[in-house]
């Protein structure tokens, strides 16, 4: 990938038959994708598989990306759907994780305050899935409500309510943690 290749140029190159250009899109959107998937699913192996699945689907459906310059938002929509599917599957049946390397990565502390990070991840898992998704799109991805509505298909008032409830719930869960840590 040339450093100055834009998403639009990479998409056009892939559609023109240069499959290798897709590696540029993967490299550019991988880190943001794994961050969202990990926050959404709370499991490193699940997050990687959802992200991998999303990239493969994006590649196969690339012609449906009508605004190649906005590949990132289009890809995020696919990833959101893959996370929904994977999250639903996890709720209805036991997941079988046998990737020991992924388990080690999941257990590895991240950031300056791994305990705080763990508490956040734990609190996120206690949110309703749609509230968690809306919260992450708003506060992690920084989307506005119009963009979130286009991406999720939900109406703006419903999305605002989901974000508000997620924030309220997180405040309760994490202030308890803060209080305990302050003692």
């Amino acid at each position, binding site marked *: 990938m040339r450093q100055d290749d834009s998403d639009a140029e990479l998409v056009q190159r*892939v*559609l*023109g*038959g240069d*499959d*290798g250009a*897709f*590696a540029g899109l*993967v*490299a550019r959107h*991988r*880190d943001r994708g*794994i*961050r969202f998937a*990990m*926050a959404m699913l709370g499991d*490193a192996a699940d*997050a*990687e*598989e*959802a*992200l*991998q*699945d999303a*990239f*493969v689907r994006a*590649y*196969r*459906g*690339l*012609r449906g990306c009508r605004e190649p310059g906005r590949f990132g938002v289009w890809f995020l929509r696919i990833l959101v759907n893959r996370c929904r599917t*994977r999250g639903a599957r996890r709720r209805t049946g036991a997941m*079988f994780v*046998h*990737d*020991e*390397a*992924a388990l080690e*990565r999941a257990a*590895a502390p*991240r*950031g300056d*305050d791994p305990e*705080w*990070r763990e508490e*956040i991840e734990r609190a996120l898992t206690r949110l309703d899935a749609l509230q968690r998704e809306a919260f*992450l799109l708003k*506060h*992690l*991805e*920084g*989307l*506005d409500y119009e963009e979130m509505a286009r991406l999720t298909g939900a109406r703006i008032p419903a999305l605002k309510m989901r974000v508000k409830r997620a*924030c309220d719930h*997180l*405040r309760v869960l*994490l*202030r308890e943690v*803060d209080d305990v840590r302050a003692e």
Partner: protein
Amino acid sequence: MSEPSDDPLIARVAGELRRPVPISPDFDARVMALVRRAPPGRAVRAWEWLREPRTLAVSPLGGLAMAAGVAGLVLAGMWSRQPSPVSRQPSAVSASAGAQAPVTFVFLAPDARSVALAGDFDGWDPARLPMQREGSGLWTVDVPLAPGRYQYAFVVDGRRFIADPSAPRATGDDFGTPTSVVTVGGAARAAGGSL
């Protein structure tokens, strides 16, 4: 695009979540191995070629032969219908107990002249499972495996046995050879690393 939260607690949560999350070093190679199995370019180009308007002059006898050919293609397509190669990705394929499921082994070795897979599933014979070179020095091979635990290694240029850097190491490597372990459970896996 991002508007900071007014609530300091929510802002702290968002800040923590924006930290980088570790990902497998071979993630990109795995994705590219999967997408190269079902390049949309060819399919799209074929579809666009079919959609292009064109005039054909066909004799009655030729028309009959074409109709028979189209019917044959449709029947052949129904007969040979199988999951698409991409659907073999780990998250999409499940194998019932005892059934074999394809496992894709991926190894990045741009300078290798040949790479083969050897493991306890093929009698450790590198001649039986040569890997195919794809773009950028990526070598892949699909192996149907029944659920179970297998040891394997990549054989580079016919002589060097190399354990898969992205997979767990086997304890008590056979014959002192570095080997890796893949566990095939209810779902097929992609295994792979780089040299």
